[in-house]
């Protein structure tokens, strides 16, 4: 059979094949994998709507359920991308040697990680969309106001995948991911404007809050859904793009060193 070695797949095909590998593995256990983003918002609705929400009647002109629901649109993307690219990546790299196998095929480290990041973005998008569909069907938020959620979910997924990959590049013991989740992800959940508006926090904390990636995702969702669209939002978009590129570059560079002897 003729076999022309110049015919190796293009960059897009290589990345797509890596993405497809993750997709294939994910949908294999689709019911169990897809349950959390649908069920968790329902649990939240019960807890907040019947419980906590009865104490907080008004939150910036909306019910507390509504306020928190918008936050959960992006945190669901944050959590899924973070797990995928910390524990998931680490296990693929160190325990299952999946990457070693893939790197024996015509795939470079860059292709491999680019596919990985895109996959985490896709999962972020899927999780945000799932959460959105639950809140919309229970009438908590309106579909028209939050149509941007899947896109924000995608970019939130990308941001947390590159951040997680960068953290993973330093890790040589799987337990160290506790530092990541307790030290980075949990504080972000509470201090990025998800559970309360960050304007309530002392002014010396404001620059730090602006530094956190989740702040910008949630601000975009809140402003767009309430129709407060202005040019300042471009700064959030710019932050997100810059974060993806810079942190992504560093993560790939460091992991390349780890994967190539």
């Amino acid at each position, binding site marked *: 059979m003729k076999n022309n*070695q110049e*015919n190796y797949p293009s960059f897009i095909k290589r990345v797509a094949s890596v993405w497809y590998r993750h997709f294939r593995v994910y949908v294999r256990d689709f019911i169990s994998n897809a349950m959390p983003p649908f069920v968790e918002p329902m649990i939240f609705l019960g807890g907040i709507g019947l419980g906590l929400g009865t104490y907080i009647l008004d939150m910036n002109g909306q019910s507390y359920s509504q306020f928190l629901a918008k936050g959960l649109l992006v945190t669901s993307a944050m959590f899924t991308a973070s797990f995928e690219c910390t524990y998931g990546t680490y296990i693929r790299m160190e325990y299952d040697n999946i990457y070693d196998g893939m790197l*024996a095929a015509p795939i470079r480290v860059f292709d491999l990680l680019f596919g990985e990041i895109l996959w985490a973005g896709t999962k972020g998008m899927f999780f945000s969309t799932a959460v959105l569909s639950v809140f919309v069907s229970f009438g908590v938020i309106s579909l028209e106001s939050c149509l941007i959620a899947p896109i924000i979910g995608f970019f939130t997924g990308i941001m947390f995948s590159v951040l997680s990959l960068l953290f993973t590049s330093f890790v040589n013991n799987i337990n160290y991911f506790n530092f990541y989740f307790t030290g980075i992800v949990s504080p972000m959940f509470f201090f990025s404007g998800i559970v309360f508006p960050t304007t309530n926090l002392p002014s010396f904390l404001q620059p730090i809050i602006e530094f956190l990636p989740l702040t910008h995702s949630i601000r975009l969702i809140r402003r767009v859904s309430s129709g407060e669209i202005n040019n300042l939002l471009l700064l959030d978009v710019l932050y997100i793009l810059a974060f993806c590129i810079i942190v992504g570059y560093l993560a790939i560079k460091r992991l390349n060193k780890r994967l190539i002897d």
Partner: protein
Amino acid sequence: MTDKIVIDVKNIYKTFGSFRAVNDFSFSVNEASCFGFLGPNGAGKTTLMKMLYGKAICDKNKNTSINVFGYNPLENELPIKYLSGIVPQQNNLDEELNVLQNLFIFSKFYGIKKTEAQKRIESLIDFMELTPKKDSKIKHLSGGMQRRLVIARSLLNNPKLLILDEPTTGLDPQVRHLIWNKLRQLKKQGVTILLTTHYMEEAFQLCDQIIIMHNGEKVISGSPQALLKKDIESYVLEIFYNNQLQDEKTIDTSKVRLEKIEEKRLLYSNDINALQEISEKLQVGDYYLRQSNLEDLFLKTTGRGLNEK
């Protein structure tokens, strides 16, 4: 067999920190031949293989040149990986997928069209005798089956070059012989094979050329048959305990070479009669008179000490 050189490596070096894993190593491989690397653990065999397809990057050195089927892995590893099948030392199958899915995902990595992929996968699992296991989880395969699957995976893109890092380590004799037969068939079809192994028998069965390496350097090279003829005596008399050989000093050292390893004595000679004469004074079961083999040569050239400190 053609004499066209398809892999040409000159003056390659690799250092990990202060450890020199490969030191000024050169070799070239003819098309459709089988080339074997032998050497103790840590000799640099795996690193050498990895440098050919970009999994390891060699040290920068102006004398270094690597040519694999016309490509330099430092510039573009993709064409090399596209035309090669790689079987790493450690199985790295995707445990989240079953046998068929593993092969199917890999066919995507090579950009093979679906209908073509299905055809090749079917014939490969048949070739590697895995058809009854095609829907099994990787976890449920034995070590030998996993190895055969990794080899099947490496053959998906009809490679011109096979890189096999200890393909049969830890496998039972049946599987080893099966794999050897398959590899011989592939060589006949024109596939060039690079192989590392600890089994001298394997090198002897498959390889046209071997290099014995030690501490990242070439010790000797040539065809297994020629090396046996040239570099080691034809026969060995192994005597298990030295007290059985009382007249050690009377041995005619012009005919027989004596090696002492703790209590054991090894007598090497091209003259079987000289060894037979000595063995006649010993009890049956205390000695073993045999033809020398690659293992003797291996131990002679790389020493008997353990190499991993």
